Every structure is written in structure tokens, then in C-alpha cells.
């Protein structure tokens, strides 16, 4: 579906279903240099099981117009505008990585608009290595290579995709390569600068799910501990032998965690 948010066209994948007024709405928010497709399986499930699934492309990503949002706080405000554009009182937010930070900040700022919050691969804070920031700033391909090297658990580096015939590392690489120059650098800088995560967590009023990849090098499990401690109604799912690209590495485990939490 197409939405208009802050005067810009925004694309959202809905699992080929029309938006149904009155049905619960789940908004999926992707991470840096990605698009809605990283949630294809999980969002499609909810779209066909009684919910409005809305997997957005962030501004400047995928099919959405505009420039990338320069801060997590801007992303949080933008998400609230998405909720307005959908014409609903509240939504459940599912965010991955940068999208998790945006969802967290949104739930902290606008608790009345977020019914449930699922944070996949969060890290608070989310420091980004200097090497990666510099490479992304220069639009060097090695930035994508570093991310791929850190985003998949050692076992996943060999493949074994649950989606038959798809090579996860190649697909992740190609998706990042499709981003316009500069997008990754802006996204990573937003992650790196975000300092408000624990304050936001303290203001969250809805139940929260935190899903952690036990082998995540981009958002190591220890970097979620303070966040988990700051959330008042939280449950945690730790996925063994899983890295940061958990929706690709363990699509069913991620879906099952979301189902149990959201349905």
C-alpha cells in the first residue's frame, strides 16, 4: 500500500491484503540499508491471520521517497505519523536493529499509540565500529562486507537457508547494494548517536518482547541487558546459534516468538 507521511510517498507491504478497519495492526520496521522484504515471511503470516500487517520501507529505502531519517528520534516521530496515516488509534510495533531503536523511542514518546512492542536484535546503546562508519561514509563496498560478516552466525555463513534455494549472504548483500549512496552511512550514524534508549525504555508502558540472537556480533546479547532491566513488562527470547539477521537465519523461530507475543 502507499501512504503519505510528512508529504512523502511511503510504501508498505501488506501481504497482498487490503487494509481492514477494526483489525489489529502490526507495523514492521526494518534496519539499516534494508527494506520491508526482510520481514516478508513474518509479516505475510500476520496479514493472513487476522491482522493488518504493514511492513514499511523507511524514507529513502526500498520504494519509499525522501531522504533517510537522520536520527532515531526522527524515526520515532515518523513512525507516529505512519500510525496517523493508517488512521488507527494504536499499533503493535515490530522493529529490527535500527528499526528496533526507532520502535523503542516511538513507544517511549507516544505510549498511547503503541499496543505492543517487539524489539529484534536491539542494542542500547548501539555503538558502530569506527571502521564501519568510515567505510560507509565513503560509500565503500567493504562496509556491506563487514556487515555481512558480522550479521550472520558462524553456521549461517555456510547457508542452510530455511527458504529453499536462497543464499542468505548473497541476498543480504544485494539488498544493501541496492541502497542509494549515503543511505547506510546515515542509518549507521543514527544508531551510533542514539543515547536515549534507557530513558525511552523507562517510559514504555506496553508489554515488550526482546528477541536476541545468541551469536549476534552487530548487537551482542550483553548490549540488551540494560534495556531489558529498564523495561517494566518484558519477556525475552534468546535464539541459539543465531546472528543479527535473525529473520533470515531463523524465520520460524522469530515468527513463533512474535505469534506468541502478539496474538
Amino acid at each position: 500500500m502507499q501512504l503519505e507521511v510528512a508529504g512523502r510517498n511511503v510504501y508498505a507491504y501488506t501481504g497482498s491484503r487490503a487494509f481492514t478497519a477494526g483489525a489489529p495492526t502490526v507495523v514492521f520496521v526494518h534496519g539499516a540499508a534494508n527494506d520491508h522484504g526482510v520481514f516478508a515471511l513474518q509479516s505475510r503470516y500476520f496479514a493472513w491471520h487476522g491482522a493488518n500487517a504493514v511492513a514499511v520501507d523507511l524514507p529513502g529505502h526500498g520504494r519509499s521517497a525522501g531522504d533517510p531519517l537522520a536520527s532515531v528520534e526522527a524515526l520515532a516521530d515518523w513512525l507516529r505519523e505512519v500510525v496517523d496515516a493508517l488512521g488507527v488509534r494504536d499499533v503493535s510495533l515490530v522493529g529490527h536493529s535500527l528499526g528496533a531503536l526507532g520502535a523503542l523511542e516511538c513507544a517511549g514518546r507516544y505510549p498511547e499509540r503503541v499496543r505492543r512492542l517487539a524489539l529484534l536484535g536491539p542494542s542500547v546503546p548501539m555503538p558502530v565500529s569506527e571502521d564501519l562508519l568510515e567505510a560507509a561514509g565513503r560509500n565503500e563496498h567493504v562496509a556491506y562486507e563487514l556487515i555481512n560478516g558480522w550479521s550472520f552466525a558462524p553456521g549461517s555463513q555456510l547457508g542452510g537457508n530455511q527458504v529453499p534455494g536462497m543464499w542468505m549472504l548473497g541476498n543480504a548483500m544485494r539488498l544493501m547494494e541496492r541502497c542509494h549512496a549515503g543511505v547506510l552511512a546515515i542509518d549507521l550514524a543514527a544508531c551510533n548517536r542514539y543515547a536515549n534508549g534507557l530513558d525511552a525504555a523507562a517510559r514504555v508502558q506496553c508489554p515488550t518482547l526482546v528477541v536476541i540472537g545468541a551469536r549476534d556480533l552487530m548487537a551482542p546479547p550483553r548490549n540488551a541487558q540494560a534495556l531489558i532491566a529498564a523495561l517494566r513488562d518484558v519477556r525475552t527470547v534468546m535464539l541459539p546459534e543465531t546472528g543479527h539477521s535473525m529473520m533470515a537465519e531463523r524465520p520460524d523461530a522469530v515468527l513463533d516468538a512474535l505469534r506468541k507475543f502478539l496474538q
Partner: protein
Amino acid sequence: MTIKPKSLQFDTLTLHAGSRPDPATGARATPIYQTSSFVFPDTDHAAALFNMERAGHVYSRLSNPTCAVLEERIAALEGGIGAIATASGQAALHLAIATLLSAGSHIVASRSLYGGSHNLLDYTLPRFGIETTFVDPRDLDAWRDAIRPETRLLFGETLGNPGLDVLDVPRVAALAHEYGRPLLVDSTFTTPWLMRPFEHGADLVFHSATKFLSGHGVVIGGLLVDSGQFDWNAANVRERFPTLTAPYAGFHDMVFAEESTTGAFLLRARREGVRDFGACMAPMTAFHILQGIETLPVRMARHVENTRAIVAFLREHPFVAEIGYPELAEHPDRALAERLLPRGCGAVFSFNLRGTREQGRRFIETLRLFSHLANVGDAKSLVIHPASTTHFRMSAEDLLRAGITEGTIRLSIGLEDPSDLIEDLGRALYAASKAA
């Protein structure tokens, strides 16, 4: 920069990509999942699998765990995003075409093609409303001039069959993209060890895995690989590819290019082409091809080394007129081959005998180590006379255009000791020269 990216190298991927020790048994080799279908844990799970809400295997026509390992492996080796294993190389070519084209569509193809591909394009597809214009692969203007509004695909072989024209993949790909069309490449003769066409701009690659990938002449199989690079949804492009960019009634109005920005082609190919045409690969076949790929780097190096020795021998032989091998100074594509094929130009080539058709027959029948049969890319050396076999349906004019004469002999050099192969060829050449 102090940190280096972590990624596995090509030779490691030939052994490991797509496979892990079997979680059920610990088996180190990839198990042959010899089953037609897979049990659903519950009804909700079953429905989710059918509706692409969950990933997994349903029925071995659509996907199979052994075939999936092979698909991931070739995708990793090519630098692509995924692949589909098919019943043969021809099935892979047909799947690519059937996924993108419909009646009224048009292909621009190199005229230097495997005879089977030529049959499909020139004789069979027109019956279904798909026309092909064949062009000299070296003539970029001919490629450009042949593109029509209804053109949907450009197609060539990395090394044209049988004259070994080297396809200028970077330039033909750039031309295709200038016009908003994808380039499909048959990479059978080169394998990803000699060339990775995606790095040069090709969008789709297919293989007859029957040849060097499996490497031992024991199976028939094909592989279709997607780079994930072509933007099917770009402005002025999306209208040409409604199979990927418009709702598909055959799958709940799914728009494949929305479902996956990168993987739309493979989604449609599996969800429609493999489902409906059914030219899937058997798991036993996938196992054999996986075994072959495990030794691809060492085999290809030896294939090329042996071929160079044979070419050097034939070049000095008085009964040999000309040799079509792009590493030779006189080959028109030598400079291009040096650029695109730095590791070598493969192990299949043709040469012309100075003699009559009868002398050609005597040559082939005198050979002992070379097997006279219709295949290439075996560990064992092979020989054939294209004009009377693989290309026999082509007119004399088309044969000449494809670089084939009555005296053309095609060799596929195997892994034997090269001195034995040279002895075999020398004896057969002598016998042929005396048969006049």
C-alpha cells in the same frame, strides 16, 4: 582500516556452501532426501507453508533439501542470491524464458549457441508466440538493432558453442541495461571457476550441470541462478515484466517484486514455472552434482592445463587446419578472453581437419581414449562431429554462421595424462591422413 571483512573463499564454498552436518544424524555428506513429500507438523503450519508465510519443503517437485543445498552452493559460487535446480540445462533455459516472457515477447540471442538452445528458440518457442532474433555475438550494433519494443531478454553463451566466441558480457550487459532488459548467460563451458558473469553485469546465469559442474558424465541436470541485481520495478521497466510486477492470480494476487526486492524472479520461477511445468531435479542427481562441485577447482585447473597441451600439439600438426581456442593469437577474441577468462578458456574446443568428410570419420573411429558421444565436460575425454550430430538440424548457412564446417571436430578434454591423449590424437590424425 584495521578490520577485514570475514567471508569464505571460493574453494571453501565449493565444499561447504549450503550444507552443514545433518542435524538428525550427524552425517557429514549431504544426505539424499529421497522422498516425494514432507510431513506437516500441524494444519496451521501446512497452510502457512502453502501461503509462503513459513519457509520449508512441501513436495519435491517444488523443492527438496538435497536440491536446496545444491541451489545454495551454485548461488554462492556465482555470487548470486539463489538458484533453482532443474531437470536439465534445457529446462533451466526454458524456466528462465517462461518466467519472464509470454506470447508476443521477443528475445535477442547470440547465433553461436548450443544446438539444443537453438532448437528451442528457433523452432519450438515460435509455436508459443515467442520470437528470437539471432545476432553475431561480436557485433554490438547487431544486438542493439535487434532490440524491439517487445524484447524482454538478451541471451548468449560465455563461450559460444562450438566456435568458442567469447561473449563480451560487460558490453552486452551494459547495452541490455541501457534498454532496460536483463542479460541471461549460459555459463556451462566456463563454470564459476573460470568466469563469474554476475561480476561482469549479467543478470541471470544458467548451467547444464551435466557438464563440468558434475564433472563425471553420470547425471543430467540444470541450474538457474539469479544475481538479484536487475531492478524489475524500475520506471520504464516494470511494464515489461508483469509476471513479476503485477498481481498474480495463480498465487493470491502476490506481486513478486513487492514480496522481495531482490528475489522476485526466483519466487515466480519456483511458484509458477517449477510448480506448473514440473521440470525439477531429482535429489539423487543433486547429490551427484554436489559431489562434482566439491572438486571443481582442482578439476577445472587440470582440464585447462591438459587442454593447453592438446591445443599446442594440434597447432603444430600438418593435418590440422585451424583451431578455435581463444588463447591462441589468431583467435579474434584473444584480448577479450585474457580479460574475462584469466584462468583459461575451458576444455572444449573445435578444430578443422584438412581433409574430406570420410577422413573425418576415420579420425573419430580410430581414437581409443576419446569417446565418441554427445556430451562435454566429462572427466573422460570426448569427441564429436557437430555437423552430423549436435547441430545437424541447422542449415548449411546457419552452420557456417555458427562457425561449423563439414570437417569440424569438437573435443572435450578430460583429466587423463595429456601424453596419452596426444598419442591417441596423433595416431588418429595419421590414420585419417592415410585414408584419402
